[in-house]
């Protein structure tokens, strides 16, 4: 066998795994359906960038329709699923808000009596957070009072800026938590990363190589270590052998030819939609592979998102900044049942963008009330003078929220697409409304002369979690605490699909820490590992 380990997906979870295994001498092959990002299209100084960015760095695969994309039917979902299919995965376009989960996130059953505990604790994951924060060049400040004390990220935080300072002062007056926010944004030259230029286009790719994205932080070293990365390699199904082990994968190459990749162990790192899609497409059973629990695809969690924008008299020059987040607040993160819901949300304070952004649905709401009489004064009022709280709300796992196969819509190679069925729960609705109301108070306390609470924005499914749930009981979970499928001992899932609950945080810090921990466990148990010979 040419390769010890096959990894599907070259986003952060795949990249971390590939690099770490290669360091230990594993022969690793990675199949990635997309391409390397083309940073020559990050033309941030051109006047047409706000327009071309939607095409070249768009988040919705259904609109983008790049060669590496597959269709996702979202007609029965309250939220659309967003992702970047290519080397670096979602980190290429992420806002770089880098949040660890809090201790309670791993213990919601014990503390709140709902859903499930994780088969690990914050303390178990903490050393891996520290390591991935070094690897991704995270900036921030240690000893945030919302987390247990310990080692923080390697770089100093991004400046709070005038907006961050103003809101921080307001929180001090209110007695509410805030802290300089952690970001995957290099505030100094660091490793292969350059210092941030605060141009604020993080969500459309960084033109300066300052954002901690897996294509920059992990892939160059992984390739040096001998990892073989095949791009434009679209995995159609896993190869299931007569003995029940997985022998690798069948994929379609850039020329449309079907190929086989064989390896002793297979790791899925294809995200909360791509991973269940692949499992449901594999094997002989109509239920797909590794699905004796029936849980593959179920419990999809996407984090309902709330935005609250404050418009101020003061000029923050806030059309740019790091974006990213200046400060975050976890004041209302923990459960308080008197509020009428359980769990909570994290807030991140962000800039609002250039003139074009002042007219768009995000973050001002679909019925942006800027058009017509008074347009120019409204633009002048908002531009540079506004800042927004982005609210990441925890949603609870529900079996009816799920990923299924779409046999009608297929990708460019004829592989069936995915369909998501997702409805916002009553708990989520109440949670978002409560948090929006508090965020409005925060901005008013900071002196905002106007606060816009955007109605629910549909196109916000950045976080794709929960669809191959991790647990100790094979009857109710798909993978164990090592990320190994209960049903198939040489098949692993290392992406956010394994999350038992969603937390109310941007997930990449925990996806990354978990992938590193899973990789270490695979290395430790390599002697006992069953492999497809």
């Amino acid at each position, binding site marked *: 066998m040419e390769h010890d380990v096959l990894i599907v997906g070259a986003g952060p979870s795949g990249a971390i795994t590939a690099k770490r295994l290669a360091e230990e001498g594993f022969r690793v092959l990675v199949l990635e359906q997309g391409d390397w990002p083309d940073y020559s299209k990050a033309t941030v100084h051109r006047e047409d960038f706000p327009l071309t960015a939607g095409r070249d760095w768009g988040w919705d695969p259904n609109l983008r329709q790049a060669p590496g994309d597959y269709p996702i039917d979202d007609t029965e979902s309250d939220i659309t699923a967003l992702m970047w299919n290519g080397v670096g995965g979602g980190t290429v376009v992420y806002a770089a808000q880098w949040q660890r989960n809090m201790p309670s996130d791993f213990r919601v059953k014990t503390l709140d009596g709902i859903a499930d505990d994780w088969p690990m604790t914050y303390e178990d994951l903490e050393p891996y957070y520290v390591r991935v924060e070094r690897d991704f060049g995270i900036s921030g400040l240690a000893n945030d009072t919302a987390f247990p004390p310990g080692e923080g990220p390697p770089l100093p935080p991004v400046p709070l800026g005038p907006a961050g300072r103003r809101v921080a002062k307001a929180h001090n007056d209110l007695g509410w*938590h805030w802290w300089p926010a952690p970001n995957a944004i290099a505030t100094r030259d660091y490793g292969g990363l350059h210092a941030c230029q605060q141009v604020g286009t993080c969500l459309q790719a960084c033109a300066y190589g300052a954002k901690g994205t897996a294509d920059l932080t992990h892939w160059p070293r992984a390739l040096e270590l001998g990892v073989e990365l095949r791009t434009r390699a679209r995995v159609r199904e896993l190869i299931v052998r007569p003995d029940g082990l997985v022998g690798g994968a069948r994929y379609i190459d850039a020329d449309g030819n079907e190929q086989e990749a064989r390896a002793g162990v297979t790791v899925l790192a294809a995200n909360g939609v791509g991973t269940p899609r692949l499992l449901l497409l594999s094997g002989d059973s109509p239920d797909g592979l590794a699905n004796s629990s029936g849980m593959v695809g179920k419990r999809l969690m996407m984090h309902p998102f709330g935005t609250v924008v404050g418009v101020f008299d003061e000029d923050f020059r806030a059309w740019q900044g790091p974006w990213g987040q200046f400060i975050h607040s976890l004041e209302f993160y923990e459960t308080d049942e008197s509020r009428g819901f359980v769990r909570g949300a994290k807030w991140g304070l962000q800039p609002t963008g250039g003139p074009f952004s002042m007219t768009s649905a995000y973050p001002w709401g679909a019925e942006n009330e800027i058009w017509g009489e008074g347009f120019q004064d409204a*633009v002048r009022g908002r*531009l540079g003078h506004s800042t927004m709280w982005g609210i990441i709300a925890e949603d609870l796992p529900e079996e009816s929220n799920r990923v299924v196969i779409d046999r009608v819509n297929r990708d460019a190679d004829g592989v069936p697409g995915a369909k998501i069925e997702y409805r916002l729960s009553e708990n989520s609705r109440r949670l978002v409304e409560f948090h929006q109301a508090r965020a409005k108070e925060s901005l008013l306390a900071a002196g905002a002369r106007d606060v816009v609470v955007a109605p629910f924005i549909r196109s916000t499914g950045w976080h794709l979690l929960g669809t191959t749930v991790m647990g100790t009981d094979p009857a109710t979970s798909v993978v164990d605490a090592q990320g190994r499928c209960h049903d198939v001992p040489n098949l692993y899932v290392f992406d956010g699909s394994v999350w038992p609950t969603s937390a109310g945080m941007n997930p990449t810090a925990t996806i990354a820490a978990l992938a590193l921990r899973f990789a270490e466990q695979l290395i430790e148990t390599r002697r006992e590992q069953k492999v497809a010979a």
Partner: protein
Amino acid sequence: MALTDAQRAQLGAIADQLIPAGGGMPSASEAGVAGQYLDEVLTSLPDLGPALETALAAVDGLEPDAALAVLREDPAAWGVLTAVVPGAYFMNPAIRAAIGYPGLERRPIDASAEPDYLQDGLLDSVIARGPVFRPTPTD
């Protein structure tokens, strides 16, 4: 992609509903939203051309305010219109100057300056309050 003069006139009239003259600044059509700057937008994003023509054809013959009301109800058409009109308007350098927007500039972080989170003891009260998370049993 060339729009006809009639299509441009139709677009200009609808665009002026969205952006009338005001605040000492010209309306959309006066600022070239249906002329030079439309051409620039369509050079950057050629795919918008056919979509724009479809949207305009659907409201051909309607008064501008009635046309706008129809376009608002069609997400695809509304998407094209609200990309093209402000896109072209803000492409005009005179408009950018009038709203005080210099474009995106490099603002490197000054590593030698005192970090602004340390100024005025901003974090003191947060730290004084102590932990705000629920500790969990670790066994």
